[in-house]
């Protein structure tokens, strides 16, 4: 562990030698910085354990709200508690992972304002990787594990007619969902280059997005559904693949194969977010302080 955590001068040199080296370099820098943060957190193990536990508890409140609702009703928008738990589990797990991997990006606005982004620019590693790994918080596993537990419970309780395709769709859904949320985080950070102290707008799409997906699509108005399907395609995180797995009617009368588009949608989202990030970074002018 100690060996692998050392930031060495080799990070930069490698980039020119290998094709696609920029990405590898970024991933490498990311892991080194994340590793450093994990080590520093682990210096206070009790504190770390407590923080993970509170992270688990605070994020579990959303599910408590759903449980409270179901203490009064048997179905919400035509979905049973187990079916809602399935949606919740996928949304919370994928968002939790994305938040852990790249959630620190939301600090970008503050770094632009106080000028500390400049420090990252002069370092020989991609800024995106440095931003994403900055203050890497392993305690955010609390949200992911809580989501995974709910998902596991739902899978046990649901009577799903499993086919090989549905089994295959499960990991595909989780990976693509995580990638879509990562794209939202990157795009949100790129937006902060323009709107420096409007970081809270990002929350509407990140935290708001995951909250939205925790409820059945049948609950929401058609315009809202169109928005999160065609404009900001959050529906591909869980609504579309999950309705296929659950064998429920699709929102917006979409064709059945739409459930399998998630990886493609995720790839496009990540690509577009990457472009937005580059444009944002290029437009960056230091505060000069």
């Amino acid at each position, binding site marked *: 562990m100690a060996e692998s955590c050392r930031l060495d001068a080799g990070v930069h040199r490698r980039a020119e030698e290998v094709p696609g080296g920029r990405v590898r370099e970024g991933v490498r820098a990311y892991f080194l910085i994340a590793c450093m943060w994990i080590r520093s957190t682990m210096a206070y193990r009790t504190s770390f354990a407590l923080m993970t536990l*509170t992270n688990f508890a605070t994020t579990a409140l959303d599910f408590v709200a759903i449980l*409270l609702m179901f203490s009064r009703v048997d179905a*919400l928008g035509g979905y049973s508690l187990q079916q809602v738990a399935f949606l919740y589990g996928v949304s919370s797990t994928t968002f939790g992972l994305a938040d852990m991997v790249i959630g620190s990006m939301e600090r970008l606005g503050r770094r632009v304002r106080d000028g500390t982004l400049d420090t990252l620019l002069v370092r020989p590693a991609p800024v995106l990787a440095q931003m994403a790994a900055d203050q890497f918080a392993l305690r955010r596993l609390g949200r992911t594990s809580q989501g995974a537990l709910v998902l596991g419970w739902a899978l046990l309780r649901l009577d799903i007619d499993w086919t090989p395709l549905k089994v295959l769709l499960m990991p595909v859904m989780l990976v693509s969902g995580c990638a879509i949320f990562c794209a939202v985080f990157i795009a949100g950070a790129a937006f902060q280059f323009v709107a420096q102290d*409007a970081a809270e*707008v990002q929350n*509407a799409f990140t935290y*708001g997005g995951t909250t939205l997906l925790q409820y*059945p699509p049948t609950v929401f108005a058609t315009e809202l559904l169109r928005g999160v399907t065609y404009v900001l395609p959050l529906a591909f995180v869980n609504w579309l693949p999950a309705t296929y797995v659950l064998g429920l009617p699709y929102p917006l009368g979409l064709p059945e194969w739409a459930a399998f588009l998630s990886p493609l949608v995720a790839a496009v989202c990540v690509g577009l977010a990457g472009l937005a990030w580059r444009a944002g970074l290029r437009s960056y002018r230091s505060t000069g302080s």
Partner: protein
Amino acid sequence: MGAGRLYVAVAAGGFRRYATYRAATVAGVFTNTAFGLILVYTYMALWDERPHLGGYDLPQAITYVWIGQSLFKTLANGGGGVETELMERIRTGDVAVDLYRPADLQLWWLATDLGRAGFEFLGRGVVPFVFGALFFDMALPADVTTWLAFLVSVALAMLVSFAIRYLVALSAFWLMDGTGVIQMAWLLGWFCSGMLLPLNVFPGALGEVVRALPWSSLLQAPADVFLGQADPLGTYAFQAVWAVVLLAAGRMVQSAATRRVVVQGG
């Protein structure tokens, strides 16, 4: 300068400070409105399934959502007011400077927080509420007295909210790292104030307990006054008792804490 005028000036300073961040305010309004939209649709599904749940009809439930989004920042249900700054000052020892001032520590911070709350109420509260009223069927009171009664209840809620957060901040005198306390306060404030679901929807004994706790002053109480679900005078009494008890507790803890500062040499 009279003591009263001093605190008015401090409150005005708090108001102006928060009013400086215009882009952040616009961003906050946008986010509160977006969350309001998500909540409104889930509530509509819920009340569609069980009309008159918790004694509210659908327009009342929708109104509840937008009141919640409007007051969320004002009342800092989960935290996020001046207490984070006070905590930081306690941690770094800067609080010694505050203690030197010819002003009372608790009143000083109360004035700052009221200034902040006042700005959040006007700057961030009005727009989500108007948005809700324009696009959804809301239960708006027809008489002016109910609106005024609501404002009084909001003012009392500001006091209770500050009193809770002041206690949270003072814990930093004993625990150098307040992260855990802040998280716990957030958890309780969020759950027990009715931000997740109206407290009258909570089932059985759980509902009885959360409605008796101080956090129910922060959203449930003003909302029920607004919706004509609660007698204003009874609500005021409930809120005022909690405000007095918690502010007195804060004062006691404060005197214990300031003695500590002197011992440490500040």
